[in-house]
């Protein structure tokens, strides 16, 4: 097991993504952040705080649970199913620019499910994607617009993002299958 991002790098990456978002958007008035459970949620909240610091705009932030949209029900592709939690989007997504936020981009299947789920809530003007870590090995034609760090990995490794809000500390580690 080794650490690929320590706490200060996680913080700097999120701040940099916030700056990139401000740079790319003429205005943040029509933007909304949606974090994918579990760890996309605190990252989205931190990004919203960063956008507020930079541009002074409060961007609405929602929570998306994609469990019911997964394509691996009954397949157990990556371990047991996560427990279903509530989706919480208390604003209309119609015509808004949505920035989806997740911790790790891997096969792209989670994002595919998130896109399906989002479209059930309305018709966004555009959807962008921000991730803290891109570990490669895509199985679908999906690409992130904002990436905290590209981390080359092998298929036998797993990337774990730990966040203060969930695990009590900020770090990104790579574990090999041989690690227990």
């Amino acid at each position, binding site marked *: 097991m080794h650490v690929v991002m320590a706490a200060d790098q996680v913080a700097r990456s999120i701040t940099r993504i916030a700056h990139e978002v401000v740079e790319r958007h003429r205005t943040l008035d029509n933007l909304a952040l949606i974090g994918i459970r579990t760890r996309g949620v605190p990252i989205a909240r931190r990004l919203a705080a960063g956008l507020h610091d930079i541009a002074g705009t409060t961007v609405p932030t929602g929570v998306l649970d994609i469990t*019911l949209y997964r394509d691996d029900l009954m397949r157990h592709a990556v371990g047991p199913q996560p427990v279903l939690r509530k989706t919480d989007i208390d604003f209309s997504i119609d015509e808004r620019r949505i920035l989806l936020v997740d911790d790790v981009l891997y096969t792209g299947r989670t994002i595919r499910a998130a896109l399906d789920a989002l479209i059930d809530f309305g018709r966004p003007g555009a959807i962008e994607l921000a991730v803290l870590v891109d570990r490669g090995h895509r199985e679908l034609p999906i690409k992130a617009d904002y990436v905290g760090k590209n981390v080359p990995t092998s298929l036998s490794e797993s990337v774990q993002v730990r966040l203060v809000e969930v695990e009590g500390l900020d770090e990104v580690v790579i574990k090999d299958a041989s690690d227990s």
Partner: protein
Amino acid sequence: MPPIADALTPDGLAAPVGLRAKDLLSIGDLSAEEMYLILDTAEAMKEVGTRSIKKVPALRGRTVVNLFFEASTRTRTSFEVAQKRLSADTINIAASGLSVVKGESLADTVRNLEAMAPDIIVVRHQSAGAGHLVARLCRARVINAGDGMHEHPTQALLDALTIRERKGTIKGLKVSIIGDLLHSRVFRSNVQLLQVLGADVSVCGPATMMLPDMARLGVRATTSIDEAVEGADVVMLLRIQLERMSGYFFPSLREYFQLFGMTPERLRRAKPDAIIMHPGPMNRGVEIASAVADGPYSVILEQVANGVAVRMAVLYLLADEPQG
């Protein structure tokens, strides 16, 4: 910012991620952790019902058969709405359309259905153990939607969800179950669930409608409704089931209401924030006065709304595991 407690239920138990049993036939099949898993999943399912598009693809391509040998409006509709919200393909077979009227046995009916490879069978039958028989005969997962006087597990789960929503927890609550205990599968499922989740259960009804082994169930029994209501957090009324009665259990419906009917006056003995529950269909003026049924403490319609969410949760959690 509150921590995201994905691994913990509100009552502090570590949550499992699936159900161990193949079927849901009895509350006894579930551990406390599994009950909390179903309730937590149901809470998340409620959100789907608030969307403009009330449908998620979780059970797309799965076939669910609703096999109802007994009249049912609420339960059958509730299961069907739950299945449609999960995108399952549903087939409804009601008693009137059944080959049983042509003399086919339950076992033969089920073997024929099994040949059409359904994923889940929801069964209601007038005989205790019908769900167990169906489960033994087929690979499909079976949900007991009421078997005679035996059990009705999804009703107990939706009652628990309603109680937890209103009270925050079930542990330590004083729950009084009042009415026709003898004929009630709702009672038999509820008493098990409430005890596993730590409620203090007492029961009340005419002596002729008590179970002979109330003491073994670990509940306090009384024939005085005032004693039963005293200090209760939850008052759960049971329907007088005239269709299941063979013989005389009380002199008249009017006398039953005099002695065991829930009225606003009687309710004053309960806690000021007590809730009134009834599994439906209600006999107004028999076990419950209209002023109570439609009163401010009544959560009867919340129970119906929660029924859909609980059944979505059970269907989803059962479909989640590959069949053995």
